[in-house]
């Protein structure tokens, strides 16, 4: 399992199809989610569990952050999903439809018990919590800090809007509050914020508009519903050369002001303040995380 891995894109691979699971390892997504939940019919849950376990254990794609999405918290499949998933040792388990911190804590207890029984490192498997209802959004802050295993939360917009009796639209104003609530909860907890999918795989322009919102709000990554969305989403979270250069100029101006003991730092006629410094450092950190050499060397 790897730490500090890029989490710009995550792609689901249904746990029923070996060919799709194998192919998913060759796309450019940062995170690969093997699914035991929605993409698997009730009669094939056992088969999917065996397939995903063996895939992660013995055919793990190199260089990817690996997740297993288990079945619902109150499903009869969950306990056996956890028995298999924990032993497969993915980077994280993706828990669907989380609504309360206590639900995460109960799963944490189960996972810890399995780790102890199996002789695995305690706390090694992390959690991504999918927030897919108004209750989950209202409790997002508690969920984000419910367990040290929680390293990310993701908005599930389709189920969320259904819970709200709202219409799901491409502009996405019906999920605007949920996006912000989850983002703030993630920022407060210091974990990764993952945006909802853009469902129409045949609308690249719509995806771009949606990504502008994703990026403007400050998300760290986004779930892709199809491999053809991966490159656009990766690009959304990778700073452009112009943005990198601007960030460098901000930091250089601050360094120069500090050297000269000038109280105020000015760049291009405007004052450089603390938020600009934070944004510049974030931009360069994202660039470095994406493998870009900044100023000829890794910062």
């Amino acid at each position, binding site marked *: 399992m790897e730490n500090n891995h890029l989490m710009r894109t995550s792609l689901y691979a249904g746990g029923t*199809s*070996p*060919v799709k699971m*194998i192919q998913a390892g060759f796309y450019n997504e940062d995170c690969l989610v093997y699914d035991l939940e929605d993409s698997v019919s009730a009669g094939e849950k*056992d*088969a999917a569990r*065996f*397939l995903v*376990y*063996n*895939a992660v*254990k*013995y*055919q793990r794609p190199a260089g990817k952050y690996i997740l297993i999405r288990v079945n619902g918290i109150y499903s009869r499949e969950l306990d*056996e999903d956890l*028995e*298999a998933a924990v*032993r497969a040792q993915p980077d994280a388990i993706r828990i669907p439809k989380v609504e309360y911190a206590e639900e995460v804590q109960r799963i944490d207890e189960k996972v810890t018990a399995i780790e102890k*029984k*199996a*002789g695995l490192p305690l706390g090694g498997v992390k959690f991504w919590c999918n927030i897919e209802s108004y209750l989950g959004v209202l409790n997002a802050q508690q969920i984000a800090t419910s367990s040290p295993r929680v390293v990310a939360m993701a908005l599930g917009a389709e189920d969320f809007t259904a819970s709200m009796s709202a219409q799901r639209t491409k502009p996405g104003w019906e999920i605007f509050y949920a996006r912000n609530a989850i983002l703030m909860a993630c920022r407060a907890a210091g974990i990764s914020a993952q945006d909802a999918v853009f469902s129409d795989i045949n609308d690249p322009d719509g995806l771009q508009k949606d990504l502008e919102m994703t990026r403007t709000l400050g998300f760290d990554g986004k779930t892709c519903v199809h491999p053809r969305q991966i490159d656009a989403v990766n690009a959304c979270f990778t700073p452009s050369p112009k943005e990198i250069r601007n960030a460098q100029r901000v930091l250089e101006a601050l360094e120069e002001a500090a050297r000269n003991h000038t109280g105020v730092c000015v760049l291009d006629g405007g004052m450089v303040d603390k938020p600009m410094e934070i944004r510049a450092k974030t931009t360069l950190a994202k660039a470095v995380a994406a493998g870009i050499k900044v100023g000829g060397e890794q910062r």
Partner: protein
Amino acid sequence: MELKKPAMAGTTESSDVMITLRPNPEGGIVIDLKSDVKALFGDAIEKTIREVLGDFDVRDALVNVVDKGALDFVIRARMQCAICRAAEIEYDWSREDENGK
């Protein structure tokens, strides 16, 4: 372990394998393998099948295998599933623990 009923796991999609298990009243393991890559990988496929049967201590079985280019992890997963279905058991995942073996 005794197989109680015929059971199947897997599909005939590319990169998959369809396993059909039946109790063998005459005793022993009989494997019928169909694969486009039988000449190259037939022995390896049969070895994996016998290994998984051995893991479950299944000694009597008719095994029908339709391989569509499955990797080893797929064959192993499909066999485990077919055995659990045919023996009507839930898998004990602690078998996968190094200490449990």
